């Protein structure tokens, strides 16, 4: 039997939601009939609006999808102005204040405290400037991700940016692909560093070479004229959520750039037609790939969804992957890097991805002054300012703003990723962003990495939804609760040794339910053991790999230190965990219509 969500989607979904959304915005939040709220809140997601947690009635998170994380000149300023004007609510964050933008692990932007009545004006401003919230959430094509410096990266095999633009234009607002069984996450990467993180997406296109004949079609491994064409190998069925992590499976298909859209559309349609619409927990395509196997996915794609002969997989470049790999250079895009046109791109660390509106506006000005005005977003919640010529580089690097968003930060700041957490999210079990900021600051002052280890990734996710991608970090932290001295406290499960690269691996959850205030001490103790017992030149990931879970559990060794965690006892029902009067009964009323 179809779920309630499927029934609602069958009534109204996709582009047509917008008309209703604007009517409700015009008439006010209270005009949404009481007995239709569940349905409309579900539908609003398709237009990037997610109703915030309980106690925050009438306020929405708004997600802006920026394909491949690319913000054209002027667009970051628009985001900053919208955040400054509209992303203000009754709660003030003790670290970040009011009005901020969150850069996400899928190269999108999230704003909070958005009121329904402001949505039409925000949409108009976004769309006038080439931005959109369309399909940023909901059961359809989400923001297409990849290497954010596509088209500019000196390590590029093929420029994936035109392919991503084409996918965005083809599948956003496309009624044939607007209503899928579940979310559909696509990655297209053209660089040899793996920075598109295709392995953890529903559908991944990764750079690969293929011998082709004179007509551009493949002629088998090593056959044909011997000329290597550059295109993409295809993987399907990756994802991290729900304690069911999967890496995308190789379906033995190579596709030239001009046919990516056909294959992507074919697989999206296959998912639309064969995905599980009766059980949302089983709906992602990773479960269909589990059930069918990659061979059947390929056979069905060939038989029913494309009208040309699929090529077998080409020669990939996975052995060169370093992004989030836990070893080698360029685990991220922070720092100064060469563009292939002789200019530079500069990756700046945005701790846990959150930036105040005033800083967003200042960064937009700096990008225009020292670069082309373009800014790009990475999957590690950081920003990249592109097109900085050599003669302007030093002045840019001396900008005051870069003291806070550094191109050469402490490894603990650089490696921090955190999801939204209980501040706004219904699913989260613990507070996250502010906690990870405090963790990083404490570790910077109190922990050391062994000589030669320049990067160390700590990802904090509030629950098993895994929005902070915890399973692919050196240290993976996942929200839990426990009792300490008999009292309930926020806690974290600790996983170790995850990463992507040529041979990706998920973190092993070795220590459970560490009270949050003992986590920094645990990481410091772990690093001491790593320094003491590390083999010459050994990476942390390799160190973890050669120890069993019991040994690693002993290395973690939770300990109270001078680290203080103000959210440790955040276990009661609150409307906003940082509010002075935080009890749920003190929640503010639904915002009045303007």
């Amino acid at each position: 039997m179809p779920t309630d969500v499927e029934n609602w989607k069958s009534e109204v979904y996709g582009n047509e939601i917008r008309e209703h959304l604007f009517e409700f915005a015009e008439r006010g939040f209270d005009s949404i009939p009481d007995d239709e709220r569940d349905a409309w809140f579900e539908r609003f997601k398709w237009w990037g609006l997610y109703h915030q947690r309980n106690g925050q009635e009438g306020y929405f998170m708004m997600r802006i999808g920026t394909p491949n994380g690319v913000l054209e000149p002027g667009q970051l300023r628009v985001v900053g102005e919208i955040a400054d004007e509209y992303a203000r609510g009754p709660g003030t964050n003790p670290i970040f204040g009011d009005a901020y933008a969150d850069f996400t692990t899928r190269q999108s932007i999230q704003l909070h405290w958005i009121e329904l009545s402001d949505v039409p004006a925000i949409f108009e401003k976004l769309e006038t400037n080439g931005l959109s919230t369309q399909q940023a959430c909901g059961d359809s094509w989400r923001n297409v991700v990849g290497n954010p410096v596509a088209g500019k990266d000196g390590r590029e095999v093929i420029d994936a940016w035109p392919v991503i633009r084409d996918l965005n234009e083809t599948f956003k607002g496309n009624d044939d692909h607007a209503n899928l069984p579940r979310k559909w996450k696509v990655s297209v990467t053209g660089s040899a560093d793996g920075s598109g993180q295709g392995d953890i997406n529903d559908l991944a296109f990764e750079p690969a070479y293929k011998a082709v004949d004179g007509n551009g079609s493949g002629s088998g491994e090593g056959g044909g004229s011997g000329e290597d064409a550059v295109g993409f190998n295809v993987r399907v069925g990756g994802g991290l959520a729900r304690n069911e992590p999967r890496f995308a499976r190789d379906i033995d298909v190579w596709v030239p750039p001009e046919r990516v859209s056909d294959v992507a559309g074919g697989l999206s349609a296959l998912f639309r037609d064969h995905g599980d619409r009766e059980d949302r927990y089983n709906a992602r395509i990773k479960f269909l790939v589990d059930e069918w196997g990659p061979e059947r996915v390929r056979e069905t794609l060939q038989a029913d969804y494309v009208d040309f002969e699929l090529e077998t997989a080409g020669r990939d470049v996975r052995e060169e992957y370093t992004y989030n790999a836990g070893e080698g250079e360029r685990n991220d895009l922070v720092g100064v890097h060469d563009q292939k046109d002789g200019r530079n791109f500069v990756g700046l660390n945005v701790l846990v991805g959150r930036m105040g509106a005033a800083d967003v506006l200042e960064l937009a000005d700096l990008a225009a002054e020292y670069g082309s005005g373009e800014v790009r977003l990475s999957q590690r919640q950081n920003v990249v300012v592109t097109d900085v010529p050599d003669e302007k580089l030093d002045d840019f690097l001396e900008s005051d703003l870069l003291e806070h968003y550094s191109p050469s930060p402490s490894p603990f700041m650089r490696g921090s990723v955190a999801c939204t957490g209980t501040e706004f999210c219904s699913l989260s079990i613990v507070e996250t962003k502010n906690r990870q900021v405090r963790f990083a600051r404490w570790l910077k002052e109190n922990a050391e990495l062994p000589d030669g280890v320049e990067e160390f990734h700590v990802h904090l996710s509030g629950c098993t939804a895994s929005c902070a991608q915890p399973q692919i970090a050196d240290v993976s932290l996942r929200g839990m609760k426990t009792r300490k001295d008999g009292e309930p406290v926020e806690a974290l499960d600790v996983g170790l040794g995850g990463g992507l690269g040529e041979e990706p691996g998920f973190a092993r959850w070795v220590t459970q339910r560490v009270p949050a205030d003992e986590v920094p001490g645990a990481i410091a103790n772990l690093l001491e053991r790593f320094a003491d017992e590390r083999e010459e030149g050994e990476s942390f990931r390799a160190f973890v790999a050669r120890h069993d879970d019991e040994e690693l559990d002993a290395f973690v060794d939770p300990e109270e230190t001078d680290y203080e965690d103000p959210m440790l006892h955040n276990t009661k029902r609150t409307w906003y965990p940082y509010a002075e009067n935080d009890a749920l009964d003190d929640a503010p009323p639904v915002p009045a219509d303007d």
Partner: protein
Amino acid sequence: MTTSLRVLDDGAWISVDDHREVRVSELWRLDAPGFCGCDMADLVVENFQEVGVDGARVETRVHGQCIACGETGVTDWLPVGRVRGGEFVEYDRSCVRRTRRE
């Protein structure tokens, strides 16, 4: 009068008549011998799997973890509240919840 019950937002909520009434992330004490070996399980509620009714009683099956012993899994049906006069009344969150006995 019918009561509308749903699990929403990836299992984050139990919605009763289109109001988000019960949420995840809380600690529940369970008398649920089938879930783990503890006399009283101390369950972190991670996801609601299903919601239903037994008479006026609203019940749910929960994916969670007992923080006393570390056992994880999905519970049998547990009570979360009652519908009285068309209104949902949630049980005191500190109460001990017993799984449905057939």
